[in-house]
């Protein structure tokens, strides 16, 4: 009955008036920014991250989680209403959701997405609660070599799930790792790659890099050709899905939840993969596969559930191992570190209220989304009609304030501009920024564990393959790498990612 005690503790933490309030604010803000077209969950969180820093650790992480769900939900809303997915994982929703909207069923599509997400969120919250503690036990036995190998798995998976060229993704990881090493060397205290600037001795500010690479770069891309967005629907009416809709969505939601929960745990961005996998499965099992692409209910319900379940279970590697499964989780790690929490297996034992509070708040956040956002849809739709040129000065001002408030270091603001430029250049050169950010976060950890493992093994590199867990992880990483380079998989992968664009 440990589980229930723990969950009770979590709910007690998460339902304190203060935390409920921050969760609500997070969900609302997340949705608010998330519905802005072209701005996905990662950019949203990067922009809103700094406002959470003034809070208590628990409240701040609960609010961040709220922002995450809100942003995801906002992304699906734009996907359905204007066929403009805020991020790749809701790209699948856009296929059938937008068609439903064109047939005047936008309300039903939004409701189906919300209900599917909520169900998936509920199930996967329990999965996190059930599986996180035993995994922490395993993780406590991890040594430096295992951590190193595990991070290699994470980085390799992020490569596999990146769009476009694999070599470019590999290069992005290497570049991210290098950028992560900027700052003082922990063993010798030597400043590295700081160009003599003392303000960078503590390393490049993670928030500055994230805001630059994801936020600013995205703004610049949107400024390339300013077109008036056509908000298709005049009115979202009839939110309630019909009885047939409910019947049609039960199966897809269940399957989507299962697929999403499993794939979400994979490091490297399982939620995106989950949405695609679910769509493919639904199309295969459907009695009317010809409906897909023309507004099939299953094509919205399945991927949305899978997406949300995956988003939820991607917290498992974060909470148990301190390893981020995707860029959003990388942002979470950054936030935890700023709050003075070292992410990893110790969080569950040392700060149970925090650990379980976050898990409980996941569910509460999902509930709030359903209760609040369905009635608020009219408001979000209005937001879509705000011209973009009014929005980005606001975003820029908030980004500047936010980044500066982290450390009161003006050099962080210069870093924002610099990484904004870099991020935009990468976009133009068709390089995926997600592996870069993952590398950036993992860089110092990877090096530290590599060096420690080498010292512990007295300079014998075989330590990584003679320790069973480490060997298994490295084998897994190698396998993933081999698979993505296989010609047949490579071809298929290109097809999948092309569908998305």
């Amino acid at each position, binding site marked *: 009955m440990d589980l229930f005690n723990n969950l009770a503790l979590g709910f007690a933490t998460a339902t304190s008036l203060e935390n409920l309030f921050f969760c609500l604010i997070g969900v609302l803000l997340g949705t608010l920014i998330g519905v802005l077209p072209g701005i996905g969950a990662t950019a949203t969180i990067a922009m809103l991250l700094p406002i959470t820093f003034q809070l208590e650790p628990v409240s701040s992480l609960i609010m961040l989680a709220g922002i995450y769900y809100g942003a995801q939900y906002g992304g699906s809303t734009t996907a359905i209403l204007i066929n403009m997915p805020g991020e790749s994982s809701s790209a699948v929703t856009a296929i059938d959701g937008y068609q439903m909207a064109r047939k005047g069923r936008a309300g039903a599509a939004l409701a189906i997405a919300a209900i599917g997400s909520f169900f998936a969120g509920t199930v996967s919250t329990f999965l996190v609660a059930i599986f996180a503690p035993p995994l922490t036990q395993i993780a406590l036995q991890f040594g430096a070599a295992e951590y190193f190998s595990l991070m290699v798995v994470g980085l390799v998976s992020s490569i596999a799930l990146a769009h476009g060229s694999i070599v470019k993704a*590999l290069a992005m990881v290497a*570049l991210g790792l290098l950028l992560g090493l900027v700052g003082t060397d922990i063993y010798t205290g030597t400043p590295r790659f700081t160009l003599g600037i003392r303000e960078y001795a503590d390393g490049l500010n993670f928030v500055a890099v994230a805001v630059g690479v994801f936020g600013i770069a995205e*703004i610049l891309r949107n400024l390339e*050709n300013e077109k008036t967005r056509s908000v298709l629907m005049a009115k979202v009416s009839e939110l309630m899905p019909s009885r047939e809709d409910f019947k049609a969505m039960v199966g897809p939601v269940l399957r989507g939840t299962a697929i999403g929960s499993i794939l979400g745990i994979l490091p490297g961005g399982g939620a995106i993969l989950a949405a695609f996998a679910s769509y493919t499965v639904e199309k295969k099992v459907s009695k009317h596969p010809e409906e897909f692409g023309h507004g099939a209910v299953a094509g919205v319900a399945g991927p949305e559930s899978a997406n949300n379940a995956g988003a939820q279970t991607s917290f498992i590697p974060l909470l148990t191992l301190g390893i981020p499964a995707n860029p959003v989780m990388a942002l979470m790690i950054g936030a935890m570190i700023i709050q003075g929490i070292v992410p990893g297996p110790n969080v569950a034992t040392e700060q149970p209220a925090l650990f379980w509070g976050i898990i409980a708040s996941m569910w509460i956040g999902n509930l709030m989304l359903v209760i609040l956002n369905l009635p608020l849809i009219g408001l979000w739709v209005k937001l879509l009609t705000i011209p973009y040129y009014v929005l980005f*000065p606001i975003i820029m001002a908030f980004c*500047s*304030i936010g980044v500066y408030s982290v450390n*009161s270091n003006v050099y962080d603001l210069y870093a924002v501009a610099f990484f904004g430029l870099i991020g935009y250049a990468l976009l133009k050169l*068709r390089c995926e920024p997600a592996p870069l950010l993952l590398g950036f976060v993992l860089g110092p950890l990877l*090096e530290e564990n590599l060096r420690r493992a080498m010292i512990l093994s007295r300079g014998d590199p075989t330590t990584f393959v003679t320790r069973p867990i480490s060997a298994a992880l490295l084998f897994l990483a190698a396998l993933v790498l081999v698979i993505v380079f296989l010609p047949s998989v490579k071809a298929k992968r290109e097809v999948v990612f092309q569908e998305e664009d």
Partner: protein
Amino acid sequence: MNSLKFDTANLICGLLLIATGLFFAYQSFELELGTALRMGPGYFPFILACALILFGAIILIQSMRVDGGPIGALALRGMVFILPAPIFFGLTVRGLGFVPSIFVTALIASFASGRMKPLTALVLSAALTVFSVAVFSYGLGLPFRRFGPWLGY
């Protein structure tokens, strides 16, 4: 193979990555490399930099084979106004103080779009300043000086 046909994006990408790799490799070389047993501060970055050069070279070679399409339009106006905004904020937030600094920052960013009219930009920046001061300075209590020493405060 027609040597005149390059994929521009990959060509630039490869060259940039190689240059970045060389920079990091050179910098790590100036640090102590150490041995595999006791890695110095330059060891791991040096390996990474070499990997980066290698990947850059592969992309460079690929650029001669596959044509991935044009780079497309550049948001030049966007870059000219968006990127200096945070820099301006950084340069002036201590000297001028939070209020004037955030106002000008928003104003600079406003002109990134050709559609923004000057009056709208002024009104928007002013409203934004009032809102930010209320929320961040009074509401969240961030330790910003509202008006700085350059203005005689």
